[in-house]
């Protein structure tokens, strides 16, 4: 089987940020905390006495300060507006308390206060900041949502829900927390919104296979929230356990019906998850590889589940350089946070995981090319790579015609949806909201769209001299047609040029006859100009003008092909306004030429009489106006009729 490899592409499809955020490494006197909500790394030296450094990819969220060491810290997190710092410490017997420090311009003020959760004997499992001034205590007794009033140095309970949970998982993007109970056989999601807590549909697992804390992640993916669960293979034979699967169970999503996605890793061991550009990256430590899964793949839904395989065979993340040398990858010191953070606490590095779209096309089975195109179409930065792949497919079309055709189908199925959304937007009457908003909204959702004018200028036009351009253009136009679209003016013009110069005029006519190229005046004119090479093109041009109701043009064509009588007849028959608007000089001149060339003065007389009739209708008198400058023709008429 032929393997496609995108030229100048690297084998890697994932990389870490080129410039990691550096922080003081974990050590006996230093503790490192990460808050994935704000993306901040807290380095606490000697309990804060010798300083706390806060690092983030976002420069406006970096700071450093000192604080008193009041005991070992369990969790430390800023509020979303960076005005309140919340710290949870490990005090024996007093675990239900969180400390607060008010901040101003990222510097601590002296205002400090504490709050104890409503269930006095509860154990705080953790706390989260769902909103700027709201904090939720997640305890083994339930969840308490509180409003922080920094000026008053106090907190006010907004809502509380009792639930007995053992551990929790939080997703800041969707404001959903999942609490596990019943030894990990029951997962209960809660949703923070409008200063309240909503209990969502619970997820029940097979009680014989409960999950642990480290096997559950809440992800936001493709505009929905999912509970990702590692299902490690259980087997009677422990020496050969079954490979691990990842189950993605829907928690909430905009679009109604969702099914469970099962990602088949085919591996066993330790895993971590990242979400990169709506792809699930599954990092596997022992093989040092990361697999990518796209849950938007169009697959068969079987028993309400969809089974996915990696879109390309697993490969390692591109080696990262720290301090001018390659750093260990997939190290045991790595901690992976949602959605795409990786921390090496020993090295003191914070990275984000990035997708390298071209890496997906580095080595692809021939049959899988359309699938890769489809995957790239769903990525934010996929377009460039798509064009590079397409260009290469066109250059090697002798090998890849089938794949190219299928790739066009993938592209046009997205293009069709985009067109429909544009139409819907325009008919909804929100056109005033700004043109191009549709495309932005579309791209905003992380989707690429290759419109026909884009494909024309970026793919077809540059290959206009390719000796197989006829086949490429045909495949593209076919794909458009198969998706209920017709080739617009730009593509039609290119199509005509390509087919005519490559000696495929018959094919051009076949396309026109079947309406694959949209009727348009410029196209009709282009065809007309081919008339000297190919009379059939001119015939179709006239047909097209007729459908476009381009009456003046038809009259012009008939006049120029020396058919004055037909021109007059056609004008009279088509439309009153056209007939009344024609210049008499032009008609008479054409009629005179015709009469003289063919020795048929009758033709001139007929046109002349028709015009007299028209004058009569228009002005009540058969005579021509002075301004119409028809004197010479009146003379000619008199001469011709007297000869008779």
């Amino acid at each position, binding site marked *: 089987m032929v393997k496609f490899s995108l030229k100048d592409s690297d084998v890697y499809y994932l990389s870490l940020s080129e410039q990691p955020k550096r922080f003081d490494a974990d050590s006996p006197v230093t503790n490192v905390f990460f808050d994935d909500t704000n993306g901040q790394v807290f380095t606490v030296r000697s309990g804060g006495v010798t300083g706390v450094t806060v690092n983030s990819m976002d420069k406006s969220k970096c700071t450093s300060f000192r604080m008193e060491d009041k005991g070992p810290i369990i969790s430390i997190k800023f509020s979303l507006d960076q005005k309140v710092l919340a710290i949870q410490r490990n005090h024996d017997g007093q675990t239900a308390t969180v400390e607060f420090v008010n901040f101003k311009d990222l510097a601590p003020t002296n205002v400090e206060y504490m709050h104890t959760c409503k269930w006095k004997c509860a154990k705080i499992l953790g706390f989260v900041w769902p909103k700027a001034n709201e904090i939720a205590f997640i305890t083994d007794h339930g969840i308490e949502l509180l409003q922080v009033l920094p000026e008053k140095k106090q907190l006010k309970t907004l809502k509380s829900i009792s639930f007995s949970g053992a551990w929790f998982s939080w997703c800041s993007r969707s404001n959903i927390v999942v609490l596990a109970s019943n030894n990990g056989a029951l997962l209960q999601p809660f949703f923070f919104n409008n200063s309240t807590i909503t209990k969502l549909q619970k997820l029940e697992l097979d009680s014989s296979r409960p999950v642990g804390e480290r096997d559950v992640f809440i992800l936001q993916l493709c505009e929905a929230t999912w509970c990702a669960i590692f299902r490690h293979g259980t087997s009677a034979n422990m020496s050969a356990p079954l490979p691990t699967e990842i189950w993605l169970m829907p928690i909430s999503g905009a679009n109604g019906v969702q099914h469970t996605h099962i990602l088949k890793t085919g591996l066993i061991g330790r895993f971590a998850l990242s979400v990169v550009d709506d792809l699930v990256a599954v990092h596997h430590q022992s093989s040092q590889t990361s697999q990518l899964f796209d849950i938007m793949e169009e697959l068969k839904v079987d028993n309400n589940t969809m089974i996915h395989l990696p879109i390309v065979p697993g490969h390692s993340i591109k080696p990262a350089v720290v301090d001018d040398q390659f750093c260990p990858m997939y190290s045991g010191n790595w901690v992976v946070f949602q959605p795409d953070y990786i921390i090496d606490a020993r090295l003191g590095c914070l990275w984000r995981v990035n997708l390298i779209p071209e890496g997906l096309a580095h080595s692809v089975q021939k049959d899988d090319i359309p699938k890769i195109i489809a995957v790239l179409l769903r990525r934010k930065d996929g377009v460039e790579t798509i064009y590079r792949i397409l260009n290469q497919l066109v250059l090697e079309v002798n090998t890849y015609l089938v794949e190219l*055709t299928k790739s066009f189908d993938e592209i046009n199925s997205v293009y069709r949806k985009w067109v429909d959304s544009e139409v819907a937007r325009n008919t909804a009457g929100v056109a005033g909201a700004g043109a191009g908003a549709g495309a932005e909204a579309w791209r905003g959702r992380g989707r690429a769209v290759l419109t026909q004018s884009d494909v024309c200028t970026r793919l077809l036009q540059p290959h206009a001299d390719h000796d197989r351009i006829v*086949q490429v253009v*045909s495949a593209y136009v076919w794909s458009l*047609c198969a998706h209920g679209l017709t080739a617009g003016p730009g593509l039609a013009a290119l199509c005509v040029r390509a087919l005519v110069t490559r000696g*495929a005029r018959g094919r051009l006519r076949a396309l026109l006859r079947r309406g694959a190229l949209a009727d348009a005046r410029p196209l009709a004119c282009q065809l007309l100009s081919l008339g000297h090479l190919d009379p*059939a093109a001119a015939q179709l041009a006239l047909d097209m003008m*007729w459908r476009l109701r381009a009456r003046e043009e038809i009259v012009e064509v008939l006049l120029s*092909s020396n058919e004055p009588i037909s021109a007059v007849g056609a004008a009279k028959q088509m439309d009153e306004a056209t007939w009344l608007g024609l210049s008499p000089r032009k008609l008479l001149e054409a009629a005179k030429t015709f009469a003289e060339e063919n020795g048929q003065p009758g033709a001139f007389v007929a046109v002349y009489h028709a015009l007299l009739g028209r004058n009569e209708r228009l002005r009540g008198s058969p005579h021509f106006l002075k301004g119409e400058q028809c004197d010479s023709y009146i003379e000619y008429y008199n001469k011709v009729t007297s000869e008779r």
Partner: protein
Amino acid sequence: MIDINSKINSFFIFNSTFGPKEGEELKRILFFHPNQVTADARKIQVGLCEAVVKFMSTFSSEPCEALQTQTKRYIFFQPEKNYWMVLVVRLPYPTKSMSSIAEKRGDMIQPVMMQNLLVTAYKMFRMFVGLFSDIPAEDIYTKCQQFFTPYILSRNITNDVTNVIQGINYLPLEKNSFFKVVCFIDLLEINYSDFKCIAFIYNEQLIWNGLSTDDMLTLYQYLVQSLLPKQVEKEIQGGAVTAAQRHGRFISPPDGIHTLDDIQKLVKVYLKLEDDTETKQYYLIIYRTLSATICLTVDAKKTLELETFRSLDAFIGPQLYNIASTVSEQCTVHALQNAQLANTENKFIYFNRLNLAFKTSAPINTLTPSAAIKPEVLTIIAELHSDRKSLGNYGEIIIKTLDEYWITGKSSNEREFYVVIQKKNANIIEVAEEVKQICEAQMKGIFFYPI
């Protein structure tokens, strides 16, 4: 129905330059049908034609076209310089009253049909054998004999509209199915770059044309009139064939291509490809699955390997089977529509001068004579069609016959349209109105003036 064989008096080809001296007259006769005519009788016939042709050349630069005597009509055709093809038919004896002549007119073979017969015969010869002038003098007699004898005997020309207006019946395939065909052809040509697909035919309807229009007509006629009917007959008879039929097979040579010897049997043809400037010699390869037939060409200078054909068979077979099924679904829909058309009382004929598309409301296959167009009406249509001046580029003529037939001929934008209406006591306005309605129904989306 008139069998042309009973009417053809003789058909011959001569070239006066071949035996210029006296006593060498027989050398000038390249071919003579019927065969049993004596040498002397041949000499007399040919001599007469030579004299007439020569005599006429003093009056006109245009070659002589026809000669009519009381009992015979001679049609001349000079396809290449000095090469003359002549068709002679016997005329019915003129009877006393004029009216009965008018009735008889319809029974006669139309001059335009005779002309067509000659032209088609020549083009067929040119396609399979080549130009007369390219054939060495010593071979030309046998070549003509080999080609024209079976050809003339196989012609069974009836007074049918398809013989008056020679066109191609295109299958109006919806665009997605059409693209399926085109992309299959593209893939085939890319995978087998020596091969070029020149025609794709479903049943007897053309879908894809890769030849110049003129050559296409000839190839189309060869396929539809001669090759395919034999195949269909074979398919109907042989139960064993049906299994193979599913997978497709090479039908030219008739027994398929299985050995190197079979490759030697491949037919060579002279054709001009679409948008090509010259005629070249090619191997003609014809493949068929279900009702779909494709014709491929390969440059005659190429050496062909048996392996190529095996691989081609494996490639085309399944794909063509798929396409044929798609097309067949569409054809069922068309057949229903056509059935409705045939039910209408009024008959029309459509002809596009540029792509030779031909369509008629009367069934093309004239199994039911009652549905066919009456001979005298056909005569009128034949005259309108063959004399382009009568309709011109944009024109209309309405003719009424004695027995209440109204024949309307129109031409516009290189298309011709004829409507035949039989209506008692109709007036011209009513007829024109009816024609207008038929036009509007049949000419949707094309420029056809005056409607």
